[in-house]
């Protein structure tokens, strides 16, 4: 644990011999809330980095408006960042904050409802002006009118203290005021004993070309830290010990970052150039941004004119021998549907990333949801099956991207990778893998004829399948003697020529389905966490609900009950043993951030009476709420014949 150097401020040895106590905590949830212009996301990210490098386990939940700059000081303009960190392994960004930092009245009003009674509010008192209060409908100042009596409130003039700290820098008031987020970060860094030199380095790097701004931010940051140390307003600071983690090298990573790095790694491990065709859309754009920075790995990024061109160009690149990738969110998937069918028909490798967001149409662009599952499964004309996989945490987006690429390349198929807004923007510590340990994804291009015409002349049959995988050969243009034509019209088995033959269409439809179904033999068995092996209720989830469901299961187990957690990474095809696994339990609960899409699939496929529990609030599940739901199921499950011993 590194503290700031005792600074030149004399106040660092507390005036009046103020005795500050240190309280040890095992976990804290902090929510930083302010105006979109207040830099809350940056502050949150910095605090996260400090926390990561300190060695706590952590999980984050950024939450920002869809508007770039809603009117200042209004409720729609509030942006927040929640961070949960602990001295043990945690799975979610926390159901509710313990500490709310409110940079203005709007931030307080928008977030106070989530803060349990007794929680700590730190508010910038400078911003609680009559005008700002009126903007959000406060008739009187809540910092003064006693309405916050149920909470601990520390009102701090963050803005004026920042201005005071920067008065000698020569910066204008407006400019100087911008550093109040760094002052706040300094204060929080002191409160939670965070290492600070990373932030100082970050600010120096970030404002390399504007040293005066870097200096001002660093000064504000230090002033905030020193203020915490000297003020009587905060008598306590908190210590959260590092979490025990498996030995290794760690970094902090967001889902979009991890996904992008997974794609770069996939290209490297396959020995293929990556080609990304994408059209910007929240919350997927950061993958495009990240990948466009990795040209030195032979990654080509193409900002297409629309999502159709995004997938079209990627498929064209795949035809040419690249690992074609297209990234988007739900509305973009809708536009890609027809081209996805072409990819199914041409049987070319393609990774399609859908970072799901809320709602139909434009919906809730910056919020999270899992409602594209059925679209991913079936959202195409004709029988057009394709593999669907979903990461379960930000760091897992890396492995999921590699897995999507593995399946796409091995089976020559488009693969849908379903991330979501929560995974995309959330962050967690991630054990940096060794490159040598990454899977080998190398492919064999077809370079020689695999058949012969009636007269014995060798010929290339582009749809003569590998008997094991049912994948067709991949012969790239430029390969001599292998010229062939592919396309969207039905293909004759083996030759790939156009065929309208009814029996052939029936055969090919079933072959395409069998190829996808066959992948079940090439994926791990169902992931079941049932510590005692005797739970009678299982909770099943997919994608980003892994964390909240896992946290809920832990709570339930702490209450002395037994529960199993089943988590699906592969949704198409399902793991081969999934039906048997489900039938082992008396009751199966399926929480989803949609209206029951996985539940529908499971019920249809396995005739198991899966009980759906759904929420579409644009936010992840709260572990406590989930635990209560599952606990009720457990408590209402009476022993059944199977446990009653009719055998």
């Amino acid at each position, binding site marked *: 644990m590194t503290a700031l150097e005792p600074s030149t401020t004399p106040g660092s040895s507390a005036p009046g011999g103020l005795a500050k106590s240190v309280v040890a905590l095992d976990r804290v949830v902090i929510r930083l809330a302010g105006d979109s212009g207040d830099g809350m996301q940056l502050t949150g990210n910095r605090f996260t980095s400090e926390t*990561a*490098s300190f*060695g706590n386990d952590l999980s984050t939940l950024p939450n920002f408006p869809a508007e770039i700059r809603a009117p200042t000081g209004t409720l729609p303009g509030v942006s927040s960042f929640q961070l949960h960190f602990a001295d043990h392994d945690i799975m979610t960004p926390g159901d509710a904050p313990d500490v709310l930092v409110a940079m203005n009245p709007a931030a307080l009003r928008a977030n106070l409802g989530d803060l349990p009674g007794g929680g700590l509010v730190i508010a910038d008192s400078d911003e609680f002006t009559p005008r700002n209060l009126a903007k959000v409908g406060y008739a009187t100042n809540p910092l003064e009118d006693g309405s916050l009596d149920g909470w601990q409130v520390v009102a701090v003039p963050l803005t004026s203290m920042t201005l005071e700290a920067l008065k000698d820098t020569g910066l204008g008031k407006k400019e100087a005021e911008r550093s109040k987020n760094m002052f706040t970060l300094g204060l929080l860094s002191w409160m939670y004993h965070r290492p600070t030199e990373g932030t100082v380095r970050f600010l120096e790097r970030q404002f390399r070309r504007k040293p005066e701004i870097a200096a001002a931010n660093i000064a504000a940051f230090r002033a905030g830290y020193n203020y915490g140390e000297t003020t009587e307003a905060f008598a306590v600071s908190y210590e959260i010990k590092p979490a025990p983690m*498996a*030995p290794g*090298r*760690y*970094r*902090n*990573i967001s889902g979009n970052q991890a996904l992008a*790095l997974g794609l770069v*790694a996939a290209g*490297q491990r396959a*020995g*293929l150039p990556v*080609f990304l*065709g994408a059209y910007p859309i929240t919350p997927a754009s950061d993958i495009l941004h990240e990948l466009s920075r990795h*040209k*030195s*790995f*032979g990654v*080509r990024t*193409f900002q*297409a*004119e*629309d999502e*159709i*061109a995004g997938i*079209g*160009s990627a498929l*064209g*690149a*795949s*035809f*040419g*021998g690249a690992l074609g990738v297209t990234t988007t969110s739900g509305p973009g998937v809708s536009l890609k549907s027809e*081209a996805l069918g*072409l990819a199914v028909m*041409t049987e070319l490798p393609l990774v399609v990333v859908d970072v799901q967001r809320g709602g139909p149409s434009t919906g809730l662009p910056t919020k999270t949801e899992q409602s594209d599952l059925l679209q991913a499964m079936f959202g195409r004309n004709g029988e057009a099956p394709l593999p669907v996989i979903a990461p379960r945490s930000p760091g897992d987006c890396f492995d999921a991207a590699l897995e999507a690429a593995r399946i796409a390349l091995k089976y020559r198929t488009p693969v849908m990778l379903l991330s979501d807004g929560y995974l995309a923007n959330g962050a967690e510590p991630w054990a*940096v*893998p*060794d*490159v040598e340990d990454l899977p080998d994804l190398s492919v064999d*291009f077809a*370079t*020689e004829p695999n058949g012969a015409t009636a007269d014995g002349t060798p010929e290339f049959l582009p749809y003569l399948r590998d008997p094991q995988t049912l994948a067709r050969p991949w012969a*790239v*243009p*430029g*390969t*001599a*003697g*292998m*010229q*062939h*034509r*592919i*396309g*969207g019209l039905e293909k004759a088995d083996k030759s790939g020529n*156009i065929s309208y033959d009814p029996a052939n269409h029936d055969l090919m439809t079933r072959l395409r389905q069998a190829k996808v179904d066959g992948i079940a033999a090439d994926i791990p068995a169902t992931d079941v966490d049932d510590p005692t092996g005797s739970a009678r209720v299982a909770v099943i989830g997919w994608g980003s609900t892994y964390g909240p469901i896992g946290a809920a299961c832990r709570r339930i187990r702490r209450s002395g009950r037994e529960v199993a957690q089943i988590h699906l990474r592969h949704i198409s095809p399902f793991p081969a043993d999934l039906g048997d696994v489900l039938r082992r339990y008396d009751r199966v609960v399926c929480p989803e951030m949609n209206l029951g899409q996985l539940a529908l699939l499971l019920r249809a496929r396995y005739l198991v009476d899966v009980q759906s529990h759904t929420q579409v609030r644009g936010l992840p599940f709260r572990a406590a709420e989930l635990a209560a739901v599952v606990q009720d199921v457990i408590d209402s499950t009476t022993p059944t014949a199977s446990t009653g011993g009719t055998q």
Partner: protein
Amino acid sequence: MTTSPHVHDLGMPGTSIDANIQQAIADSVATQGEKQTALKAKDMKTDQEVRWCPGCGDYVILNAVQSFLPSLGIAREDMVIVSGIGCSSRFPYYMNTYGMHSIHGRAPAIATGLAASRPDLSVWVVTGDGDALSIGGNHLIHALRRNVNMTILLFNNRIYGLTKGQYSPTSEVGKVTKSTPMGSLDHPFNPVSLAVGADATFVGRAMDSDRKGLTEVLRQAAEHEGTALVEIYQNCNIFNDGAFDLLKDSSTGPMWTIPLVHGQPLVFGPDGASCVVRDDFGGLRIAETNQVDASEIVVHDATREDPSYAFALSRLSSQDLRYTPMGVFRAVRKPTYDRMMADQLEEARTGSPGDLGALLAGNDTWTVSA
């Protein structure tokens, strides 16, 4: 590797195509023999039965292309033809090259991904007036402005052939079709004007039945580095028969056709009676040759950087096809997208060759020891 002008010279091996792709190509050459570049028209044919209506203009275009392509000296396996959907888009099946018959309107997008990632290939797009200008209009204009190295052949029969005869975005106003029994209401696109408006670096127009003229435009288009658009007037003898007779008929054709020859004065018509002269506001107009001074007659220059001249040329023709310029309107040099993309990759690689381990670790790591 071929050295035809249509294909980028890659210089050092491995600079633009990934090593594994190059290895596959080398392996195939090792087993199949050297790349064949001395080809004949028959080498371009496939065993697939051509399925256009007898008499369709698509046949003559296919023949012209099959006869012309070998002259480029490019091996068949280095050519890729990508098409959309429509009668014309059946084209790839009849060409013994690599090909993709894709989905309606999207061929330029698919070809863009292919050409941008494989600058070693000769990439062609075959599309129709509905495919390119209606459902695929967006992809077409963006392909043209981007200038990816590929040649787009737009078969314009001024009708939807495959769907059996609805009017298209190039049909003349008032066209009576199955979907417009009282005549169509919307004003057509002039594909050349559209392409020039999108800043296309190469725009040409040719007639299906004019083998010589078509071949000449194809040659220039193939030699052009960047996106080339060739509008080919194509007769659909089933749903829009005779659409171009005004220009084809020997009695009327010469009167209404303005042949574009780079460096030559724009004089046309029987006995050179008509010519093109400058008009107000930077436009062009038709004049009678004997009524103007020779110095007033415009000398065709396809290489003019400013697209207004090519645009003005394209506006000489009306939707009834009178005064239709045929040939190459515009051929200007601009850096190609695929080349610039390859250059950026190269620059990034030389700056800092990709180190995956370092990338995964990022700037801020911490170590937990056992």
